[in-house]
Structures are given as structure tokens and as C-alpha cells.
């Protein structure tokens, strides 16, 4: 250590503060003038300190987990109340459903009704969205042992999504019901009236051509209609589609159950019949045979 005389040391001590304040201004200017240097110094410091932070991250994470746990427990109470209430409601629904089911079996027995076979389906993964010829379509990856034919309907886990329109070796294109080219026969569940659901490239397809005297009711359930005519052949009846919504401008639309904006898996229903006609068949309908 350098030995200095006491007055000199005192003078130095008194001077150091103003000098350092001046240096502080200097660093301000330096930081303004050479941002790169400051950034490099900052990064060097961060690099040097990162092992400490990495070591700290463990206990900090543990504490955060504990607080999250506590918050979760608090939330659990409210959830429990809500769930119990919902459970109660669902129990009532279950009772109603069981009663209806019993009634249905009873009626069927009395009518000698032969039930439709439950439609079988296969599941395929959505690999690409949009694109192609259509504005609203998705691409499915189909394995070699997955038999997919044109015209089969595709549902996501909630409801109708679209129909298979093109098939390749490893993929199939599904035209979504929202596409402007899509027309689907549907049944209004309340009135059992038939209608056509026409896509218009927006999120909610329109309802068209419902029979005279019947109006779709707001909130009415819409299911697929089993139309066995040639154009719509192979469409199973009663698949859930959505609910009716009236727009402010007075058009009937269908709010779809299917979440078309986030499709990941689609169920392809096989109903045995051929689907969409080839274009030439539409252009030149077969001449009728003489009776």
C-alpha cells in the first residue's frame, strides 16, 4: 500500500466523489455513444452470473410450485361446488335419458322396428389445413390399410366436419361443411323438417330450402339427414351437426359443434354407399330407360 500524508489523503477522499460523479456522466455518454460495448459488458456479466441463477432456479421453482399448489387448492373449493351442482344436473339428465331409452325400447318392441346398424368409423389424422382447390378443406393422412372412399363423412369429436372429396395413395382431402362448395342435407331435430346446409366460407354455414310452413327455431339442434338419393348417398342420419342461429339480418345459420379451426383427428364414417358423383355424371345425366 502506498503511504500518503494525511492531508493529501483527506483531499483525495474529498475529491473522489465529484470525480466519480463526473465519471458517471462519462459512462452515461459512453453508453449512449457505444451501445454495443454496453451490451457486450451486460452479456459478459450475465454469462458470469448464469450458473448462480441456474442454481437459484431450483428453489425458486419449488417455491413457485408451492404457491401455485396453494392457489390451486383454493380454486379447488369453488370448482368442487360447481362440479357438484353440475353433477346433480347431469344426474337428472341421466335419469331423463334412461327413462326415454326405456320408452324407446318399449315403443320399438311394439312397432317391430328394425334399428339401423350403428355406423362404423375409422380415425385419421389431419396433416394439413386449407389450400388445394377449395377454400375450406383439410388433408388427412391415411394409412395403407385404411379404406377411404369418396363421399364418406368426417366428424371430429363433437360433430360433423365435412366429406371426403379426393383420395390419393396416402392422403385424402376433406371438404369442410363451411366451404362455399359444400351442400349437406340436414334434419331440424325439433320439426323433423329437411333442409340444406350450404357453406359460404364463413364460420357458420347457412340453412336453405326448408319446407314451407316450417321455420327453423333459434337453438334447435341440427343433425344429418339420411338422404339415400344418388348425390348424397352414404350419409348416415342423426349425426350431430350444430344448432340453429338466426342472424340479425334474418338468415338462418348453423353454429357447428365441430371446431373446424382446430381439427386434429377426424372420424371417417363408412356407410357403405357411394358418395359424390363424378363431374361428368352431373353434366350428362343418364337418359331414362323406357318404362
Amino acid at each position, binding site marked *: 500500500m502506498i503511504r500518503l500524508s494525511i492531508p493529501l489523503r483527506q483531499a483525495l*477522499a474529498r475529491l*473522489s*466523489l465529484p470525480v*466519480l*460523479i463526473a*465519471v*458517471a*456522466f*462519462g*459512462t*452515461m*455518454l*459512453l*453508453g*449512449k455513444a457505444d451501445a454495443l460495448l*454496453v451490451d457486450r*459488458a*451486460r452479456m459478459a*456479466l450475465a454469462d458470469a*452470473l448464469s450458473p*448462480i*441463477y441456474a442454481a*437459484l*432456479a431450483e428453489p*425458486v421453482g419449488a417455491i413457485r410450485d408451492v404457491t401455485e399448489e396453494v392457489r390451486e387448492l383454493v380454486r379447488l373449493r369453488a370448482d368442487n361446488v360447481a362440479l357438484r351442482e353440475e353433477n346433480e344436473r347431469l344426474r337428472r339428465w341421466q335419469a331423463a335419458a334412461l327413462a326415454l331409452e326405456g320408452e324407446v325400447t318399449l315403443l320399438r318392441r311394439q312397432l317391430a322396428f328394425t334399428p339401423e346398424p350403428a355406423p362404423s368409423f375409422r380415425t385419421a389424422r389431419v396433416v394439413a389445413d386449407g389450400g388445394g382447390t377449395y377454400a375450406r378443406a383439410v388433408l388427412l393422412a391415411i394409412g395403407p390399410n385404411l379404406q377411404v372412399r369418396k363421399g364418406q363423412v368426417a366428424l371430429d369429436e363433437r360433430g360433423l366436419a365435412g366429406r371426403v372429396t379426393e383420395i390419393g395413395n396416402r392422403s385424402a382431402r376433406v371438404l369442410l361443411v363451411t366451404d362455399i362448395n359444400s351442400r349437406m342435407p340436414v334434419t331440424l331435430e325439433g320439426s323433423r323438417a329437411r333442409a340444406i346446409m350450404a357453406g359460404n366460407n364463413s364460420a357458420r354455414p347457412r340453412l336453405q330450402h326448408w319446407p314451407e310452413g316450417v321455420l327453423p327455431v333459434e337453438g334447435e339442434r341440427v343433425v344429418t339427414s339420411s338422404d339415400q338419393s344418388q348425390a348424397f348417398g352414404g350419409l348416415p342420419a342423426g349425426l350431430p351437426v350444430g344448432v340453429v342461429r338466426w342472424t340479425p339480418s334474418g338468415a338462418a345459420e348453423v353454429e357447428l359443434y365441430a371446431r373446424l379451426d382446430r381439427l386434429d383427428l377426424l372420424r371417417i364414417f363408412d356407410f357403405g354407399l357411394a358418395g359424390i358423383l363424378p363431374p361428368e355424371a352431373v353434366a350428362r345425366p343418364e337418359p331414362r330407360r323406357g318404362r
Partner: protein
Amino acid sequence: MFGRREPAPGMMRRLDSLARAAMPFVIAAVLMMLAAAPVGVPSAVPAVALPCVFFWSVFRPAAMPPPAVFGLGLLQDLLTFSPLGIGVFILLLVHGLAMRWRRHLARQSFLVVWLAFCGFATVASGLGFALQAVLAWMVPPIVPGLHLLGLSTGLYPALAFLLTRTHAAIRAADEAA
């Protein structure tokens, strides 16, 4: 902790006194680094540095010489992402003013010192806001400044408790040496 009944001879003794002198700086630096750890509390670094510098400047100025304050300010500026030099300047200013008024402050009760610190913190936040505005040549949001003010005044009692204990320990060790 640092006290020895028998004064250690030569080298050890020098190290001992050096460690004692460096203790306040080291504590402040470590606290700042801990405050910079990602725990989700923003602007905690200046809120830790300000009480440390203020406390040592008032109660033990020898432990917090201007170069140490400069170093802490530089550390603060590098740890936070404010323009370089603002923290240095503010801490040096706080140090200088606290040094000047320490004769009055050191004799007061804790509450008065805390109130004085609130004043210091207000001035420091306001100055930081103004410097930020001048350096960036735009008006920065005012909420971080208020946040810093609240955090530093709120942290001061806890830090002062810790630092008072350290101060007493250092003094006891000094007297023993």
C-alpha cells in the same frame, strides 16, 4: 462471526480487516445479484441497492467509499436494462447527500431515518425518471418509477434490520481486534 478474541498475527490479520471492510460492499452486491434472479419481481435490483448504499453512507461511511458506490451503481446498471450511468449517478448522489446529513440522521430513531429514506427514494425515482426521459428523449412510463419507490421504501426496514445486525457484528469485531 468475525470477532476473534486473540488478534491474529500478520497476514491473517490483514485479511481479516480487509474482509470486514469489504463486507458491506459484498453484501450489497450479493443482494443485488439475488434480486436480479428471475423471480418475477421487476426493478428489485435498484430497490435493493438504494437502501444498502443509504444505510452504510449514514451509519458507517468508511464501509461504503465512493468507489464502492460507483461499483454498485455499475453493477445495477448492468444487471437491469436501464441506460448505463443512471444508476451510478443516482447512487453517488444519494451517497453524497447521506454523507453530508449523516451527523443529523445517525442520531435519530429508526422511524425518522426511514422517513428520510423515503424522501431519498422519492428524489432518486424522480431523478431516474428524468434522466431516463432525457437520455432516451421520450417520456418513459411512470409506473416502473412508482414501483421502484414503493418497493425500496417497503424493503428498507427488512434490509435495515439485516444491515444493523451486520453493523453491530463488524463493530464488535473491530473492538475485539
